[in-house]
């Protein structure tokens, strides 16, 4: 059974004399017989140990009676589905979701102190784009030389005129 000396290295006999003493002692310890009745005691402890590792132990007596009937299990499953679905529908039908309001209520502005807006509606200037009240003079054409020499044009941004 042992395969200790098949490749020239014996596991059971050491190279030194000191180690052989240790291995003899360890072999004596390893060869000590087991106490009487060990197997019986182990078997007894196994018989008293809990057999099931499940979290919820289903009773065997109940399991073998009506739960083995397919029709009964089908009816139980249908009843569970009916109760859960009915309860959900009842809750849904009683609790209606709140309708979103179409107007935003602004908080009242205290007008009794300081300046008031006189109910004027402020319109952002950039809402419809910049409105020019006067046409821009053609300054580029005036500055253009007559001899045809090209100069790099400067970009002149049109100044917006306040309305």
């Amino acid at each position, binding site marked *: *059974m*042992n*395969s*200790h000396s098949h490749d020239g*290295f014996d*596991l*059971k006999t*050491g*190279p*030194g*004399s*000191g*180690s052989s*003493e*240790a*291995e003899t*002692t*360890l*072999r*004596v*310890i*390893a*060869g*000590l*017989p*087991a*106490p009487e009745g*060990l*197997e019986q*005691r*182990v*078997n007894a*402890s*196994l018989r008293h*140990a809990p*057999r099931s*590792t499940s979290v919820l132990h*289903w009773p*065997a007596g109940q*399991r*073998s009676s009506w*739960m*083995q009937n*397919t029709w009964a*299990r*089908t009816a*139980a*499953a*249908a009843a569970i589905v009916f109760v859960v679905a009915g309860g959900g529908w009842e809750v849904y039908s009683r609790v209606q979701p709140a309708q979103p309001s179409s107007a935003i209520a602004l908080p009242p502005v205290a007008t009794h102190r300081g300046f008031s807006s006189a109910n004027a509606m402020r319109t952002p200037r950039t809402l419809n784009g910049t409105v020019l009240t006067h046409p821009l003079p053609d300054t580029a054409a005036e500055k253009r030389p007559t001899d045809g020499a090209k100069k790099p044009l400067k970009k002149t941004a049109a100044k917006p005129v306040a309305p």
Partner: protein
Amino acid sequence: MSASQSVFAGWMEIAPSAVEDEARQQVEEEALEALVGQYASTLYRVAFSILRNPSDAEDAVQEAFLRVLRHRDTLGEIRDHRVWLIRIVWNIVLDRKRRAKTRPETDDVAELARVLPAEGLSAEQRAAAAQHHAHVLSCVDRLPKKEREVMVLSAFEELTSVEIASVLGITESSVRSRLFRARNLMGSLLQHSRSLR
């Protein structure tokens, strides 16, 4: 049976029938009892070689078989039950030894003399042998953990180097190199202790 009935029946199938369950349990019990009868003695000796306390070793064996009971579903997948069980009890005893941090009971020479076989020995010879073994065991305990483990397991005649490697979760070449170092260390430790006497 309609399709919905078969779906519900399959969904609600919690466990096999009680008769099958009892028969399966009976088979498992018999298999476990066979394992206990076959390997309890080996497991005890492995546990005792580390713990060196008879009651602790027996507790370790019982705990090992309780673990087997908990994982009895995987028994069919185990290739070598002996090595598997030795590995379980080995882990248990190492864990217990790590937690206990106490000296083994057999460090007491009188207790060792009581445990060791003494056929044909006088009381004086028995005491001298026990003292010698206790001294050697104290030197074994001074070995590094890896070397000590290999040396203890190699003392079991029924364990090959491959099986020792499987128990320890290392390669066979590691077993051999560790055993070589352990023997050298043991030689120097025993020589050093003799020179001090």
